[in-house]
């Protein structure tokens, strides 16, 4: 009776064991997830009133550097509508808030006062004062992180109506 090796119950057992093996993958996958404590720490609050006009500040959010630049009135008036659409406006003041990682391969671009923009040393990419890419290779503007305005502070990691509006306008990145 050679067929006993491939008997019906043998197949059923194989299926049941397979289901068990797949079930065991669930806790394994969950164990690899970011920890709740890591997720809970994924918010950064910045008091915008402490920023100085025209001086670039770098904050940290979820381990990533964030550019924060308070723009002068002169800078704003010289901007195109496309550039202004990416400004975060609090109490009439315009700010650049963007993840400081080049959208090409993730290097940190340097701020150039002279050029009124950002230069990435890795592969020569350039961004303007609103983080819009002006020279390849970066394929898109610097990404704007989710934010929520609360008084004169901004909470990175939460989404507020201003952020939603930018998202709808499609200017986030």
């Amino acid at each position, binding site marked *: 009776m050679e067929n*006993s*090796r491939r*008997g019906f*119950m*043998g197949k*059923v*057992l194989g299926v*049941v064991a397979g289901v068990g093996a797949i079930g065991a993958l669930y806790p394994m996958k969950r164990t690899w997830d970011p920890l709740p404590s890591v997720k809970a720490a994924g918010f950064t609050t910045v008091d915008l009133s402490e920023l100085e006009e025209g001086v670039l500040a770098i904050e940290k959010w979820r381990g990533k550097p964030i550019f924060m630049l308070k723009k002068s009135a002169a800078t704003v008036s010289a901007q195109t509508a496309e550039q202004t659409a990416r400004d975060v406006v609090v109490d009439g003041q315009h700010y650049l808030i963007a993840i400081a990682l080049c959208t090409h391969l993730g290097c940190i671009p340097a701020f150039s006062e002279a050029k009124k923009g950002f230069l990435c040393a890795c592969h020569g990419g350039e961004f303007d004062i609103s983080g819009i890419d002006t020279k390849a290779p970066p394929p898109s503007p610097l990404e704007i992180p989710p934010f929520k305005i609360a008084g004169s502070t901004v909470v990175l990691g939460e989404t507020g109506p201003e952020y939603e509006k930018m998202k709808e306008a499609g200017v986030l990145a």
Partner: protein
Amino acid sequence: MKELKILAVVVFFSLAVYILVEPIAHGVMHKTIDKQGFAYKDLPDVNKKGDATRGKDLVMGAGACTGCHSIEVAGIAPTMDALTASSSYGVVPPDLSIAGAIYDERFLHALIKNPAKALDVEHKFTPDSGKMHPMSSFGGAGGDIDQEIADMVAYLKSIAPDSASVTPTQAFENACGRCHEVRYTNWTQMGEKPKFKKERDSLIYDANVLDYQDNLKKYMGKLPPDLSMKYGARGEQFMSTFVENPQGLLHGTSMPRVGLNAESAEKTLQYLHDSYEPQAMREERDRTGLWVMGFLLILASVAYLWKREVWKDLH
């Protein structure tokens, strides 16, 4: 059947080892005392009906409770910050807002009359030691002292919330939290540690806690342990009876009997259980366990049927 007999032998010897090294050996090693239901029968029963209005005057009176204790609900703020208080008294005198809800009435009465006796720490404050309990005994206001104390207790009960509304965290903070830290719930002897944006502020907070702990160490003899894991390390029976009667389990300890009523003691224990094994985790464990058991029962049944199918050809 022969295999079942063999299994019985294996199970017998395995169980014998288990019973000897677990329940029996641990029973010999750790003495236990019976639960008394937080009744404090050794303290006198006071059958006097208190009057909260008169009690209020006594509590607020000169040289009485509010000289040291704050009562937030009655608008009485602490006279000094926690660190200064700990250097004066060894430990922060508790706020009395919910004292009437969480402490046993008989205990409160005895406490006001003679703190060291009610707290069961008289061995620390003998005349020879030259030390006095930081809370002084209430000497009476000229009338029947028992009636006066009953009035004070009545007042404390009148301002306290309904005992059912006290949360485990509140019960814990009042009963244990001024002497014990709980790292896993972010609790220090000075309260829950806030989030600081600046490293320096966080370090200053930690330094203050260290100073507080030094004062506490002087007062208690040694630093009371962190309670994060104690529920697991000592077990429910020990924790419950230790809270109720510390001297009964650890003779000579400077841990006072805190005098919780049964309801608040249960909440305090719940807090300690949660810091060791959060309830959500316990529920997840039971749920996962049932799934795994269900699966294994199916697996075993199918495995048995397969074995029968294969072995048909062998015998």
